[in-house]
């Protein structure tokens, strides 16, 4: 059939230099921006909701997770001696790697000595208030407090653990630091396993760095595993999830694009009069993708990988313009593409700009993922339009043409297409109405990531060695500084302790609340000297060598004159500790420049009250709440926007515009019913898909009603465009990432309903004979 046809892509005249230069510049710029993107792609779900308008609690959560993402946990199981030896060897080998800035075992920080040192220096600010809060409210006199402190010291000296603290006792006979350090680590895990942690020196979202670091860890574990064959290693951490997510998302992007491209090629083959058109379409798709990628790279610091998965639907949409141009050119037999472009400039620009505007409207969303998708698709489509004017005119339309295969469709299919469409429309509408009747919202952030069951299992198993049970509830108590956190904490803990169902597992031992600080200030001011004297006497009476405690008495005396137990003192002291704590303990608290947090672990959900600054550290639950908020916000923005569009269409195109808008609106509603049926609920991404679907459905409906082709139920360009769009969006439904499916199905549904309605109803232009 096409054997005698030869591609004749020879320019008819010297290449339009301006077009060529502009195109080359655009390509160069987009390539430069796109190549700078690879190391910045994020896979963190909290990044999906980050941005300027981000909720404060999410900012805290995001920061908390960011710190946690740097930690790699390695659990080691096996016979006690072997696993301990393997753990020690692993720790020392990891310390040699530049990819890690700190390595430690269990909960211990990499340099416990530094924390000890700071705690000793700041013990009066951070630890004395709670010590006094335990003693003075009982009405104890300074003498009684002193006597009890000596008695505690004597008892402590009998305990086995005191052997490790003896050197610090001359400075700290009140046992402020030993007690804090023992409580800081909490009860040791009952787990019969060792845990080695390592903190990455750079972001784990840097693909090359992460790959190299994980590779090193794997080879070290393999080498140690050979020497200790009975020992098992379980590695876990965000880096592994990130690696798996990037790999699976890349595979998704590739898979979706290849399928859509294959569909487009087949469609181009059967609907265009010359096979060379396929090459043009591939160039158009590639440049549109490049444009979208470059814009996202330039505008977003850490674009999310899902942007590119969902953005893959761009292929099916942007190819429309090329198809539109090629089909019209072949139908009109124009000698140049530029001439065809002049003729179809109106509908091409009108359709393109309305879709681009719809996409860019997503930039007003509070969800950064939607903003990224908006920019990606909007700029991608704009690039595709630019390619139509800059690229196609460089070539002469092929002179040897064949009859497109699509025109050889059996006649009965054309005759009965209305009936087929009506049957399909009725069936789908019935299904959709059933869904709409059962419609419910289902915002679940887990749908945004491809499930990684083996990694999740390993993560739970590794964290178990830290003493964390899967059923525990994690919260972050936050505030503008650590003092606000402490106030919130004591308020919430008081309520938690009053409820038998909630047990607080984790305590924070060096966050004195305002009451303790005030009490300490009063005690030191009025009884500081007396306590010192009584303590000295009590030590002597109990046969202690009082002179060995001179360092304590000197520091106590200096403290009574200088320290005023202010919030600022506490914030500065905790900030000092925060800077040296690393490893799993680093999540214990945070004192930053503008915010602070402290975690809380409980056995049952904490009942919150208004004014509580607490957010669940379980990312899923908290982000679900945020996603639900964003969904509502999106709806409150999208519905008025659609109403305005409908009014505008009514004004411009009168009845035709209104009818088109109503058809599109009905299609969108029905598509949400389909989403409910197939996914058991509708979420933010389903709504977004419906919004995109509305834009496309409106395009097709308007174009069909304004420029009907005699003898056809739909204009050829709309038919081909609808097929490519349905193809590209329906491919999204096959993604393992459920949210991508939500978006794909609602967009596909909107296009399907509108086109089926057009085919089944548009009889008056049909001229079968």
């Amino acid at each position, binding site marked *: 059939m096409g054997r005698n046809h030869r591609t004749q892509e020879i320019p008819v005249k010297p290449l339009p230099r301006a077009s060529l230069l502009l195109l080359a510049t655009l390509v160069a710029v987009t390539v430069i921006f796109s190549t700078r993107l690879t190391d910045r792609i994020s896979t963190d779900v909290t990044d999906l909701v980050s941005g300027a308008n981000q909720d404060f609690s999410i900012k805290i959560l995001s920061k908390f997770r960011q710190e946690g993402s740097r930690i790699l946990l390695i659990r080691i199981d096996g016979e006690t*001696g072997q696993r301990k030896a393997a753990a020690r060897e692993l720790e020392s080998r990891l310390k040699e790697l530049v990819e890690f800035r700190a390595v430690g075992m269990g909960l211990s920080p990499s340099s416990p000595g530094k924390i000890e040192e700071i705690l000793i220096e700041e013990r009066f600010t951070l630890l004395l208030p709670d010590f006094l809060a335990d003693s003075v409210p009982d009405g104890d006199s300074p003498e009684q407090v002193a006597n009890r402190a000596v008695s505690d010291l004597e008892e402590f000296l*009998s305990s*086995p*653990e005191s*052997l490790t603290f003896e050197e610090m006792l001359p400075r700290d006979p009140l046992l402020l630091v030993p007690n804090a350090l*023992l409580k800081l680590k909490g*009860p*040791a895990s009952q787990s019969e396993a060792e845990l080695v942690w390592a903190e990455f020196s750079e972001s784990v979202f840097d693909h090359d760095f992460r790959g190299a670091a994980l590779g090193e860890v794997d080879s070290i574990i393999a080498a140690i595993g050979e020497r200790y064959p009975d020992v098992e290693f379980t590695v876990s951490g965000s880096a592994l999830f990130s690696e798996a997510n990037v790999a699976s998302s890349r595979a998704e992007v590739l898979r979706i694009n290849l399928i859509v491209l294959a569909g487009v090629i087949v469609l181009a083959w059967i609907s265009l009069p010359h096979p060379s058109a396929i090459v043009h379409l591939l160039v158009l798709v590639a440049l549109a993708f490049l444009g979208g990628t470059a814009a996202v790279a330039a505008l977003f610091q850490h674009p999310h990988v899902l942007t590119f998965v969902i953005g893959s639907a761009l292929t099916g949409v942007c190819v429309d313009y090329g198809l539109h141009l090629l089909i019209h050119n072949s139908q009109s037999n124009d000698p140049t593409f530029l001439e065809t472009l002049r003729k179809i400039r109106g509908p091409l620009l009108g359709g393109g700009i309305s879709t681009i505007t719809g996409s860019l409207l997503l930039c007003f969303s509070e969800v950064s993922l939607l903003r990224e998708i908006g920019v990606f698709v909007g700029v991608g489509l704009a690039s595709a339009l630019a390619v139509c004017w800059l690229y196609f005119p460089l070539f002469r339309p092929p002179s040897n043409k064949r009859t497109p295969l699509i025109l050889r469709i059996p006649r009965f299919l054309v005759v009965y297409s209305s009936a087929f469409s009506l049957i399909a429309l009725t069936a789908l509408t019935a299904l959709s109405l059933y869904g709409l009747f059962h419609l419910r919202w289902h915002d679940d952030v887990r749908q945004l990531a491809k499930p990684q069951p083996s990694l999740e299992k390993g993560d739970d198993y590794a964290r178990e060695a830290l003493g964390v049970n899967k059923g525990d509830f994690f919260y972050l108590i936050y505030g503008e500084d650590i003092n606000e956190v402490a106030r919130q904490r004591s308020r919430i803990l008081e309520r938690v302790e009053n409820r038998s169902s909630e047990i607080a597992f984790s305590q924070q031992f060096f966050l004195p609340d305002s009451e303790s600080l005030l009490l300490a200030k009063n005690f030191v001011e009025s009884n500081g000297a007396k306590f010192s004297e009584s303590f000295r006497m009590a030590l002597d009476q109990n046969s202690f060598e009082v002179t060995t405690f001179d360092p304590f008495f000197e520091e106590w005396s200096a403290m009574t004159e200088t320290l005023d137990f202010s919030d600022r003192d506490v914030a500065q002291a905790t900030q000092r500790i925060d800077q040296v704590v690393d490893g799993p303990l680093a999540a214990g608290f945070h004192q930053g420049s503008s915010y602070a947090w402290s975690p809380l672990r409980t056995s049952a959900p904490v009942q919150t009250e208004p004014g509580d600054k607490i957010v669940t550290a379980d990312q899923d639950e908290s982000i679900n709440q945020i996603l639900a908020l964003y969904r509502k916000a999106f709806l409150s923005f999208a519905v008025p926007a659609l109403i305005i569009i409908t009014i505008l269409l009514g004004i411009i195109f009168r009845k035709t515009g209104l009818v088109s808008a109503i058809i599109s609106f009905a299609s969108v509603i029905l598509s949400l019913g389909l989403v409910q049926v197939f996914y058991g609920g509708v979420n933010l991404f389903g709504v977004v898909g419906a919004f995109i679907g509305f834009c496309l459905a409106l395009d097709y409906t308007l174009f069909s009603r304004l420029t009907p082709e005699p003898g056809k139920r739909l204009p050829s360009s709309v038919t081909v465009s609808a097929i490519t769009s349905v193809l590209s969006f329906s491919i999204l439904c096959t993604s393992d990432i459920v949210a991508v499916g939500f978006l794909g199905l609602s967009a596909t549904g909107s296009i399907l309903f509108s086109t089926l309605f057009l085919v089944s109803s548009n009889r008056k232009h049909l001229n079968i004979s």
Partner: protein
Amino acid sequence: MDRVTVSSFRCFFRLDLTLVALLVYCSSAVTFAAEPTAQEPIPDGQEWEDWSRIQQARKAWSSDFEQSRYTKLRKVPTRQSGRMMHSPEFGLWVEYPSLDRALLISSNEVRYLKEGQEQDVDDTGLSVVLEAINHVLSGELSPLGGSFDIDLDGDPAANWTLRLDPVTEEIEARSILIEGKAEMPEEIEVDFGHGKELVFELRNQRSIDPPTRKEWEEITGLRKSP
């Protein structure tokens, strides 16, 4: 180690007999030095064999103890009494009922308990000392060979004194002294230096039936995770 031996044999064909003899000697030295169960620092002799045999013949035992803690912080020792139980299979259990504290020392770890809860104590340097005591009480001296100089005085069948002197600075003690009478230990003394000393005087020592794992876990209150 194998590489050293192989390279030694390669040299055999190239060098004269003197060098060959020297290389073969070095090769054997490397081979033996790398053996993990080096016995070198432990002197041979009948009395060692007797001591080990007597200690290993005794299965499990328990006793009361009086602990004296000497420190430069105090003019007098801090005393505390408690109970001790030893099983060669599971280790040494040291209990301080009045403090509600306990210590479980096995061959390769030390666990600290307070009010039934295990505490995470950074005891680097100290744990080696405590584990060494457990090894001695089990009659196993071979694991201590690389870390301590070991000296035995007296009659293994009557009164004996065993002294361990650390050979590395990482070990947080100057010496460990264990006195015993035949199969039963009587006193354990650890000198940490700088006036810091820990002495256990054992009383009412008695042999007991070796506990099963379940019994041991019930006594110590430590249930292992499944």
